[in-house]
């Protein structure tokens, strides 16, 4: 079966700003594929080109076997999307919006069901202008699903949602995939990407830095494990540096941090217990996608809000 999305050598410039320099990736049917990267790295431009909302300057694009440039209308009927910068008429009510889009792109679940699923039942008669940021976001995702699309593009879906609402949204995205749709998820939240995405591509300055599963990215770009525990400052711990794969030990008062590779926690625990030290808070911090992302992009502030 052909990939749902094939992108190779995508390039897009706005005037003299190169938004996307060289992006290639493939999305297989039924997966949740993440596009991760700091602000301005070209994520939105990439997904807009995929939907035929922008015309690529160069590169080969195939989405559901269609060419987004020449078959945009046909394609847009098959793709559900939540756009990053979009709006509805101020005075349009939630129920009316869902009904309108359900009429324009029929084929999906009854719109009243989406109203329920996305927690908008109480806002049915609320005008778009009076919705909170989170409610707008949920409405847009609900609108993306109204046609029962084969491909769903979600651009910063959970930006503006509170933590509880984010978790609900994650479950619903998983449910969308379980119903058979393929999902392209644009995000700058590491936990969201790690939790939801089967595979992802990390973008920076319009280019792909790395691709793979979260586990692959972590293994390839952040292999260091960190073990922490408390021990009285006067206890001698120098023997820990002789353990296999230990690279660095740092003591700050009674706080000790050991960095290294391999089964670090087991080795440190064994060495400590052998010498009669049994710290109650001994714990390992296993590397996360965020660690891998930081070492890839060198950007400590993925929101770009600094």
């Amino acid at each position: 079966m052909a990939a749902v999305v094939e992108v190779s050598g995508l390039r897009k410039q706005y005037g003299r700003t190169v938004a996307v320099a060289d992006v290639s990736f493939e999305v297989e049917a039924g997966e949740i594929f993440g596009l991760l990267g700091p602000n301005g790295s070209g994520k939105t431009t990439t997904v807009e080109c995929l939907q035929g909302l922008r015309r690529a300057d160069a590169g080969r694009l195939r989405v559901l076997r269609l060419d987004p440039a020449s078959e945009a209308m046909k394609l847009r009927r098959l793709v559900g999307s939540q756009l990053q910068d979009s709006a509805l008429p101020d005075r349009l009510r939630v129920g009316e919006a869902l009904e309108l889009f359900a009429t324009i792109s029929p084929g999906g679940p009854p719109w009243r069901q989406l109203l329920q699923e996305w927690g908008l039942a109480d806002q049915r008669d609320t005008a778009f202008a009076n919705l909170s940021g989170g409610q707008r976001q949920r409405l847009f995702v609900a609108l993306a699903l109204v046609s029962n699309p084969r491909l769903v593009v979600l651009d910063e879906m959970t930006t503006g949602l509170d933590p509880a609402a984010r978790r609900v949204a994650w479950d619903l995205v998983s449910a969308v995939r379980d119903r058979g749709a393929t999902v392209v998820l644009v995000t700058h939240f590491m936990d969201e990407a790690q939790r939801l995405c089967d595979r992802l591509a990390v973008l920076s300055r319009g280019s792909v830095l790395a691709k793979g599963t979260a586990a692959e990215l972590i293994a390839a770009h952040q292999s260091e494990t960190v073990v922490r525990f408390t021990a009285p400052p006067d206890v001698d711990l120098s023997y820990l540096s002789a353990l296999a794969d230990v690279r660095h030990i740092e003591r700050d008062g009674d706080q000790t941090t050991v960095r290294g590779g391999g089964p670090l926690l087991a080795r440190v625990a064994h060495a400590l217990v052998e010498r009669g030290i049994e710290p109650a808070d001994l714990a390992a911090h296993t590397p996360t996608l965020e660690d891998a992302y930081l070492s890839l992009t060198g950007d400590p502030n993925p929101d770009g809000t600094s």
Partner: protein
Amino acid sequence: MRALRAMTWVELKLFVREPLTVLFVLVLPLVMLYVLNGVFGSQPDPSVWEGLPPIDFYTSAYVALAAATAGVLALPVHLAGYREQGVLRRFRASAVRPATLVGAHMAVTVLIATVGAVLLTIMSVAVYDAALPQDWGGVIAGFLLTAVAFAALGALLGFLLPTARAAQGLGVLLFFLFLMLGGAGPPTEVLPDALARTSELVPVTHAAELLRGPWTGTGWDETALLFIVTLLAVSVALTAWQLRRDGRT
């Protein structure tokens, strides 16, 4: 077709929810007509208003003005706002052609203009004893042509102007220009020469002339017809060209 119908229905509801626009388009012309009738009375004066009783002259002028106001005051603000806020993108992503959106807006505009025109006619005829049209078919055809032409002009402005604010500014400016120089205000015969010549360039002048012919039974004014048809053709062509350009970004 289904999309166009659904969009038109929604846009109509949205229009009605804006009290200020409704007031401007539907109520203001009625008030103006009331005031003017008080000022000019009902005696024809051979030196002005083409020798017609003032109410007969002004009824066609205000019916034309209702069509023009609906086109240039409300429609450009809505479309420019849609583009500015990303509503257009939202619809485009759901495979709604911009032409469908424009079509829905134009349909609503023509409908509102028609309501305004009917209200004005009823008031003129029932309250001020204006004459009914001699040629109903001609008046209706002329009015629909006028309303569509001004709606097309409004759509063009909506796509050319960058923001809703700019559209609002230009809309109000055009409204007053149409009102003062389009025959709905002082009769052209009393205007200074320069202004009278300018009024020849104002579309409402020609739209009113177009309606006045069949209304009073003197037949079509060909210059007026040509002017309004040209307005329609140029507006549609430029809007289509602008939409094409937008689609290629």
